[in-house]
């Protein structure tokens, strides 16, 4: 006990509890006043009993005077207090009897009419030896009890000393440092609920502290690993075992039956590591507290799910809540509680475990816990500054709403607050959007090799908003041309900000994102070719990103550009259709296949440039499209 220890001290309940309100508050009876107490005690006096005793002892004279003295006081009380009625009646009876007795005595004293003869009492047959034996026997029995107790005390003390047994009081002290305890008559009870932390859950978390029997301590000491404790805590059966909130996202099942079958297979660990009986009290209490917390969380979520009106109604069945967060995506929140009593259930879950496809989502479970803690915190921590007058609790904005003359709409906005369920649905939606976005970007990056697609996810994000930057560039040409765009992933929508500053809002259908990225890829190729041409000294004759000519494209428009060699004798035409790919054509002047015909006779027309011929790009040297184009331009620039 070298260290100083903080001990919280609570006065034991001295007053009786009159009523316990629904929120668990105890209303005590006010203590009795002095006069009330006296009246109460006076009512308890058994006058008939004392009458008999007095008759036996025959001390009537003294008794009579005592009664008389009490009798004198009596009329004052009679008038003021009704509770004294029984006392008065009994006293009156006593007075009557005493008066009769006094009369008898006075008659007897005269010795004229009545004589009192002493009655010869029967001599008590005394057998001293029997008495001695009886007393001896009783004494030896009492002595044996005492000796037995001493023996046990000594034994336990020596065992404790020699074998380092834990001390009950030290353990109790440790328990008190972390848990709320109070003494109620002969028992020690504690409270493990989150009431003091701001919870408003109705279920109580009362546990009882008892001393562990010695055999158990000895067994615990022999068992390896477990720290023995002289304490034993008993938690109510509804808080025993383990509980957790299972959150899983899954594709909507074909029919409800399979959905419920699968969802009933919530894997729940049977018990805590180590057997229930030998658990340390700290772990046991923490587990029970966790059970209580999970129950509160689930009760709250279920209430909100029922209240909230969504387009597809939420389903609350038993210990499960089913929510549709995105078309054909369900969020399933379940309360898994295993208190070790329904063992057959856990076996059933094991056999069904293989059916469950969706994994338990630890992140969303953690978010749920966090959200409820935030609610608890806000229940106890009101925002500053606190008003000197007026109610505590409303936000600063709400307190200012009156003086600032806020109108109905603003007030409605203020009073709206998101429920836990709405928040978790948003988080789940965002989680899905993010995962789908990742999947789309990764598959595109895998499919498309030519321009490289690099996506950077921002490490800093919020539970409902994250951001990815996408860079499109060609290997070796990243300095010449790169296209970058940013995608903000929200709850149900995506916002893409492209290089040209255009903002496109996409829905949760990810084909839209895919199409957008493909458009960006082809746009990148066109701008890349023009940039390479500029570097090579080629001249851009024309370019159009939205060609009107040709068949209608299923997505975006075809684009094209026309480049001329530095000395103007060669031309490259590039046409890019997102559905077909990129086609490259070349032409040269003077054209080699110019023949004088009847219509075109002059030789000068051969300079006009000939028909375009397609280049078979796949047969060309070069790592990627831009490299091929560079080689092609280099080849065409050299004087042939």
């Amino acid at each position: 006990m070298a260290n100083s220890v903080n001990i919280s001290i609570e006065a034991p309940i001295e007053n009786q509890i009159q009523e316990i309100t629904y929120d668990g508050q105890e209303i005590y009876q006010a203590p009795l006043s002095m006069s009330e107490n006296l009246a109460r005690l006076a009512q308890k006096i058994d006058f008939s009993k004392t009458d008999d005793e007095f008759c036996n002892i025959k001390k009537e004279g003294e008794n009579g005077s005592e009664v008389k003295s009490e009798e004198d006081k009596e009329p004052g009380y009679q008038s003021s207090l009704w509770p004294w009625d029984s006392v008065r009646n009994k006293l009156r009876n006593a007075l009557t009897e005493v008066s009769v007795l006094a009369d008898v005595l006075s008659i007897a004293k005269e010795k004229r009419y009545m004589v009192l003869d002493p009655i010869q009492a029967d001599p008590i047959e005394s057998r001293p030896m029997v008495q001695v034996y009886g007393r001896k026997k009783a004494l030896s029995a009492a002595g044996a009890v005492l000796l037995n107790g001493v023996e046990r005390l000594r034994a336990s003390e020596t065992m404790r000393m020699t074998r380092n047994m834990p001390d009950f009081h030290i353990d109790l002290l440790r328990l008190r440092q972390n848990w709320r305890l109070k003494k109620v008559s002969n028992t020690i009870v504690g409270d493990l609920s989150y009431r003091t932390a701001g919870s408003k859950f109705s279920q109580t978390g009362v546990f009882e502290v008892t001393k562990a029997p010695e055999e158990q301590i000895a067994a615990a000491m022999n068992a390896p690993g477990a720290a023995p404790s002289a304490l034993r805590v008993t938690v109510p059966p509804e808080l025993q075992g383990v509980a957790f909130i299972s959150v899983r996202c899954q594709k909507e099942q074909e029919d409800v039956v399979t959905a419920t079958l699968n969802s009933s297979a919530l894997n729940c660990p049977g018990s805590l590591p180590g057997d229930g009986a030998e658990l340390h009290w700290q772990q046991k209490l923490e587990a029970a507290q966790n059970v209580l917390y999970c129950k509160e969380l689930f009760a709250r979520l279920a209430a909100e799910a029922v209240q909230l009106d969504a387009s597809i109604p939420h389903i609350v069945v038993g210990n499960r809540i089913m929510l549709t967060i995105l078309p054909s995506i369900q969020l399933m929140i379940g309360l898994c509680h295993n208190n070790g009593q329904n063992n057959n259930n856990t076996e059933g879950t094991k056999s069904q475990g293989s059916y469950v496809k969706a994994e338990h989502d630890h992140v969303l479970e953690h978010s749920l816990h966090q959200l409820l803690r935030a609610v608890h915190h806000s229940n106890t921590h009101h925002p500053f500054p606190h008003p000197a007058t007026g109610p505590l609790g409303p936000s600063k904005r709400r307190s200012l709403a009156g003086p600032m003359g806020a109108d109905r709409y603003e007030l409605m906005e203020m009073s709206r607050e998101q429920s836990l369920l709405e928040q978790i649905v948003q988080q789940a939606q965002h989680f899905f959007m993010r995962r789908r976005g990742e999947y789309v970007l990764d598959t595109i990056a895998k499919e498309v090799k030519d321009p490289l697609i690099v996506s950077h996810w921002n490490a800093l994000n919020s539970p409902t908003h994250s951001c990815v930057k996408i860079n499109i560039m060609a290997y070796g040409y990243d300095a010449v041309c790169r296209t970058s765009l940013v995608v903000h992933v929200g709850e149900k929508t995506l916002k893409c900000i492209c290089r040209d500053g255009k903002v496109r809002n996409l829905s949760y259908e990810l084909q839209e994102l895919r199409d957008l990225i493909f458009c960006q890829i082809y746009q990148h190729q066109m701008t890349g070719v023009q940039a390479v041409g500029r570097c090579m000294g080629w001249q851009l004759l024309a370019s159009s990103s939205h060609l009107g000519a040709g068949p209608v494209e299923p997505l975006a428009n075809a684009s094209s550009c026309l480049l001329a060699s530095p000395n103007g004798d060669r031309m490259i035409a590039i046409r890019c259709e997102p559905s077909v790919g990129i086609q490259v054509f070349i032409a040269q002047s003077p054209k080699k296949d110019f023949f004088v015909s009847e219509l075109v006779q002059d030789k000068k027309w051969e300079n006009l440039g000939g028909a375009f011929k397609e280049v078979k790009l796949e047969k060309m040297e070069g790592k990627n499209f831009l490299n091929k184009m560079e080689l092609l331009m280099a080849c065409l620039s050299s004087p042939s």
Partner: protein
Amino acid sequence: MGVTVLQQYPVPENKTGTYVIDLLTKRILALGATQAGQFLVDCESYLSHPTMGSTKTVHILHNSEQPASVFSILESGTKNIHVIADGLFDLLMMKLSQHYTSKKQTKIESKGPKFELGDFCIKLGSVTMNQNFKGILIEVEYRPCVMANAVWGLLREFLQGILGSTISVQPPQHLLSRMNEIYTPIDTIYQYLEHFSAYRKITGLRSA
């Protein structure tokens, strides 16, 4: 909160207030307005106790558009001082009943239907003092604008369209000095107080 103009509408000699309200309602609905609930503006006046020196009047007004606020205007001869507070101010006035006595018989209110027509919000209020009909007040609000000067022309044209050309529409006295300032809810309250004070002075009672 946009600019609001309060306009008194005279009730013809042989017509009742409800008749006029019905007439105006039909006119507004014919323009394509939609009804958007009811509104209520009430005013109660308190006189200071003679022991406090010169008599002052405190007007307490409530507007259903600002349900969390209590508007109070202290008339002290030359200057009017206003305080906007929250609902607890009513309780405070009860505590002050020693110093400020309520003139119950002058409690006056304007209530009636509220209409929305595009950016305009029209309220047809029938004014009653102690259940006695006093007249009709029409409130027109143009919500996108907060500067009276910029929108006065539009409001006048709109009012004349509804009320007819026989009624002259003048900018409210209170707004004259504040034409170039940002309009706030208390400006509406001042206009109501102006009209309520005028109604209180009229002794002739009309049946609704």
